[in-house]
């Protein structure tokens, strides 16, 4: 019995460990953000900058939807509604807030803001950035509040029926935004308008392009890091376990003492918060004019594709799929460049197959018992390699026959999705994570040291 006592003692976190555990993700997020902005960004061209930024925002969206569709097993198809709410709330606050505090709607860039960086001699950080940060949080919080409203029907509905409700939510948001009055462009116009009407003047169907353009690689990737770590810890926490148990078997979960109704709403609230943050980042991106379409089902479906492709319930899967789904259609725009990618794809295939060979084709009994899957990572590598090699081969053939692949890009993209769903319906990683493979045990233990309890 003594060993049990010892193990029980491990459950108590060390006092210093608590603060460290809370703070290191923030520090890590800041470091990643700063590196992205000050080291990576100056060395890449404008086009790639935009792509990398979009991928970051897509990752936040996909991972947040994973919490509802993947963890909790509730099928929501109105996620873009939260994106739009967060975007419009943050955009309106930052734009009209700028007029109130700084006299104009323009961005006050500091060193870490702006898609292409701040002008030379910009201060390290500015009051405008504080406003931007507060607006982002406000967008996330308002979005989370609406998450309660959308989560409540999920108490009574499931499956297709819930999906229709969430679809309806997205459409309501879209139509409401369409009805908003024109953007007020000057201090005078703002002074004349009734105060309650000012924050609601977000341009209706004309779009809201005047939002100050703060979003940068720093902000986006700091948010990506925090979202990923949050989602990962959530999955390991007791709240996360409650969510997963609802996905697995709602009646059994209830019989275990899980308050299923309460946690289903929580799932929506958390997901809505992060989608709102993603929306705020999107709204403040250079070249983006927020419009009601951003709340529409097309956008929602893009996010669902990422989550399903990644594997319902897998954080790493959703993040990888978000990158692919965002980048692939862009890549197909300029098929000439595709040929060159064989240089990357072929080694990927070789490495992937070699790793799979070492892992063995089937799970051994022992492996099944230990709960590890060493095939997850090689499979992802092979999948990526196959896609890249396939595309470059396609580009090569097309060039021979003088076909402009760019014209068919959406068809190719759709075909790729179909092939993927037929060959691997559970998505890239299923419900597993990249780090579930034995190779990644050390990494996993570093990110989330489990407080005892594992193994006998």
């Amino acid at each position, binding site marked *: *019995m003594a060993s*049990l*006592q010892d*193990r*029980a003692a491990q*459950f108590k976190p060390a006092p210093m460990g608590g603060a460290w555990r809370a703070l290191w993700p923030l520090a890590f997020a800041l470091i990643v953000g700063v590196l992205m902005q000050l080291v990576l960004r100056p060395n890449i061209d404008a086009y790639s900058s935009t792509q990398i930024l979009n991928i970051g925002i897509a990752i936040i969206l996909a991972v947040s939807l994973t919490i509802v569709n993947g963890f909790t097993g509730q099928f929501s198809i109105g996620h873009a509604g939260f994106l739009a709410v967060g975007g419009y709330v943050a955009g309106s606050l930052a734009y009209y807030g700028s007029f109130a505090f700084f006299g104009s709607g323009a961005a006050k860039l500091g060193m870490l803001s702006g898609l292409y960086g701040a002008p030379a001699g910009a201060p390290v950080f500015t009051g405008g950035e504080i406003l931007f940060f507060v607006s982002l949080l406000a967008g996330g919080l308002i979005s989370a509040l609406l998450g309660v409203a959308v989560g409540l029907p999920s108490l009574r509905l499931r499956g297709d029926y819930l999906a229709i409700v969430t679809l309806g939510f997205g459409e309501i948001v879209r139509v409401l935004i369409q009805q908003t009055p024109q953007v007020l462009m000057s201090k005078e116009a703002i002074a004349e308008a009734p105060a309650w009407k000012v924050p609601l003047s977000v341009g209706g169907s004309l779009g809201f392009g005047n939002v100050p353009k703060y979003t940068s690689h720093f902000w986006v990737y700091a948010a990506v890091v925090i979202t990923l770590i949050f989602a990962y810890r959530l999955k390991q926490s*007791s709240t996360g*376990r*409650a969510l*997963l*148990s609802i*996905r*697995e*078997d709602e*009646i*059994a*979960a*209830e*019989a*275990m*003492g*899980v*308050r299923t109704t309460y946690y289903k709403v929580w799932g929506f609230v958390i997901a809505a918060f992060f989608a709102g943050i993603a929306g705020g980042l999107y709204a403040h991106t250079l070249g983006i004019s927020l419009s009601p379409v951003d709340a529409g089902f097309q956008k929602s479906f893009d996010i669902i594709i990422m989550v399903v492709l990644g594997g319902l*319930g897998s954080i790493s899967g959703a993040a990888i799929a978000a990158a692919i789904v965002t980048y692939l259609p862009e890549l197909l725009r300029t098929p000439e460049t595709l040929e060159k990618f064989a240089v990357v794809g072929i080694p990927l295939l070789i490495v992937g197959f070699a790793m799979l060979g070492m892992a063995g084709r089937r799970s051994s009994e022992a492996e*099944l*018992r*230990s*709960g*590890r899957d060493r095939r997850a990572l090689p499979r992802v590598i092979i999948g990526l390699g196959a896609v890249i090699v396939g595309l470059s081969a396609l580009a090569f053939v097309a060039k021979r026959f003088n076909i402009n692949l760019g014209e068919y890009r959406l068809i190719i993209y759709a075909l790729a999705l179909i092939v993927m769903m037929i060959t691997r319906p559970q998505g890239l990683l299923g*419900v597993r994570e990249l780090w579930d493979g034995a190779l990644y045990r050390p990494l996993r233990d570093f990110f989330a040291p489990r407080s*005892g*309890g*594992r*193994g*006998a």
Partner: protein
Amino acid sequence: MLNVSNLQVSYGAIRALHGISLNVEKGEIVTLIGCNGAGKTTTLRAISGLVRSSGGSVSYEGSDITRVRPHELVRMGIAHSPEGRGVFANLTVEENLELGAYARSDHAAIAQDKEKGLTLFPRLRERLRQQAGTLSGGEQQMLAMARALMARPRMLLLDEPSLGLAPQVVSTIFQIIREINAAGTTILLVEQNAHMALKVAHRAYVLETGEIAMEGPAQELAASDEVRKAYLGVG
């Protein structure tokens, strides 16, 4: 310990339970036998709050629990191992067990109970990190029971533990049911396998189309002509 009086449940216009009354004393194994659709599962679910009753009352250790939500009941010491096992297929055996203790926060005692459960079901220890969906039917039933025990219940509601299992596994499961009871847990057992159920139970109720048709000590019922004909397939 548990008193059910005149309990009624309706699914829409269909009345599943027409007012049934039963009681379970501390330390007993009481079984509820009957055919498909007799209302056995509904009775258990109404007791544990998974379905709403439309009339009657349930009391447990002297307090009325008719309207108490399931997650509260677990904290009051009633655990329910649902029909069809309901293991969390994509989670590991260990994670399933930990979820069984979801309502508790006494980590040291939980670790002890896990150890107890694994001693009771040695097969589960071998498969601690295996996904529950990859277990055999018998192992899943063992997991469902071990998981329910993780709530450290004073009263265990067991719904059809023999469902779809090979005869040999069924006798193992019933042996364990006896052991659980011997260790001090009161059990209300719902079974279609009347033969096995009447063997382990102290008392039994026979349910027919939503009403109690017979009740009495298990041995007496097992010997009665009516039960033998209708449920044991003899005579």
